[in-house]
């Protein structure tokens, strides 16, 4: 499933550009390959990130894999469903399984304030990403 209103990276992240903000997460293909996701480590809000720099770690029952930033900028917000604890207590909204069940929706991971809009040219179109999936299959 490759929605045609998104952009992609070759490391299987998706991006939705909303004004100056890039919302990102992992693709349906990525979650299928990883299997049940159990923990996602994300950068802190305010952190500077670079295009295709490592910004997090995704742990599934099968493996551990890196998350890359699709674009340079500053982390604006992270999805709280990936925090098992908040302010010293259990987070009742901890739902890492959304990365599996709804990767393009409730399973989004990071919102980044874009510092260089020209970099969006480096992202893959849905057609290019589908071609990449075919090549990797």
């Amino acid at each position, binding site marked *: 499933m490759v929605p045609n209103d998104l952009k992609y990276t070759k490391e299987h992240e998706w991006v939705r550009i909303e004004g100056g903000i890039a919302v990102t997460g992992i693709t349906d293909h990525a979650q299928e*390959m990883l*299997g*049940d*996701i*159990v*923990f996602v480590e994300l950068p802190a809000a305010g952190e500077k990130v670079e295009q295709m720099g490592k910004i997090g770690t995704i*742990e599934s*029952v*099968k*493996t551990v894999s890196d998350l890359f930033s699709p674009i340079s900028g500053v982390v604006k917000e992270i999805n709280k469903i990936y925090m*098992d604890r908040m302010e010293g207590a259990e987070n009742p909204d*901890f739902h*890492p*399984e959304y990365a599996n069940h709804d990767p393009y929706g409730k399973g989004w991971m990071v919102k980044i304030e874009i510092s260089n809009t020209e970099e969006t040219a480096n992202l893959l179109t849905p057609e290019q990403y589908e071609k990449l999936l075919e090549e990797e299959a």
Partner: protein
Amino acid sequence: MDEKTIFELSRPGTPEIQMPEHDVPEMILDEVIPEKFIAPLPPPMPEVSELDVIRHFTRLSNKNFNVDANFYPLGSCTMKYNPRVGEWASRLHGFAGLHPYAGYENSQGALKLMEELSEDLCEITGMDGFTLQPAAGAHGELTALLITRAWFKDKGEDRDIILVPDTSHGTNPASAAMAGFNIRQVKSDGYGNIDIGDLKSKLDDKVACLMLTNPSTLGLFETGIEKVESLVHKAGGLLYYDGANLNALMGKSRPGDMGFDLVHLNLHKTFATPHGGGGPGSGPVGALGPLVDYLPGDELVDEDGLTVMKPRTRSIGRVRSFYGNFGVLVKAYVYIRGLGAEGLVRASECAVLSANYLATRLKEAFDLPFKRRCMHEFVLSASRQKKLGVSAMDIAKRILDFGFHAPTVYFPLIVPEALMIEPTETENKQTMDAFCEALLAIAREVEENPEIVKSAPHNTPVSRVDEAGAARKLMLCGI
């Protein structure tokens, strides 16, 4: 029947347990221990009779899967039969009752065994010296990497990169990170070897070491090893041999002859100690040439018939208390001396033969991604079954219903839906045939009745567990 936990079996006030009268003066607790260290309540110990305890744990042990009861083809783990003579020898009073502070004059038998075991391991691997201290495989990796770090520090070279292939055991990059290095991954080529072009692009004057398992975790011999060796050494790096798969090569090929500088072995795997239950293991590290001087612990040398300990001048220091897991060393010694040179060769030959027999029988029903003669293990892919909605995990669970342990799944990472199978040399043809029949029957079920595979296991004491749920909610304490 569900087994209750020992805490659920507890009956407060169980009268069967009676402690004897003490024969020392009574101390008042809060007079000898500061109040802040005293727990407000006694620990929640279960109150059960001796018979309750015996029956509880005997019932649990009967439910446990073990290599003494069933075939255990868990890839990468070398679950071979462990000859009982090793248990007998390691329990001999002269070994088991020996105190590590007894002094070398009173420990000659044990020291001689360690000296000769080190020599045997040198002979088997082509190394010049060994330390027997590391307590497990990954501990051996860490030890070798700390030696690597000390080596380059002494040479005044600033090298902080460790190369690992994309097929490596997960412990390789983990040990490298723990030793303070950064990691670069090297790709495999379509043949299952290290991609030489990719290796070249990753080598520079920052690379301290390449960690390599040969045969690789794909169960394939790294046929480009001579090229790899010359490239790494030309770039000034060291070559480290992860000995996890030595069971394929004993007496056939030696890491030292391939150009490796450092080696770790898993004595508990290749040299027959029961393992998989959390230890004790043993991960000796061997070194070549001047690196020997960096090994932890003393060198054991023969002086006029006595084994004496000589300190190593550049040793990185102790990595384990006393002499390592000595009982495992005794078992390895007995195994090596029991089989002898010819027996070790035969063990490796049979391990390789068993794996090739299984691979040949199973490759019709499952995909074999690398079409080469395998070594002591092989990796199938359940990609064909995955297209029908059944995963490698489902197949692994279904195998349990047939009374076999599951293969390793989803490893190595470069093979999708991987099923990694290592039969070892100790299984007979009947057992391996029964395992093949089971896997072939499962492959038919995937086509005809996939639900039975997807909902497996059906015949085990515990049905499918929620692995994701257990990993997300890390609750280890039941009470």
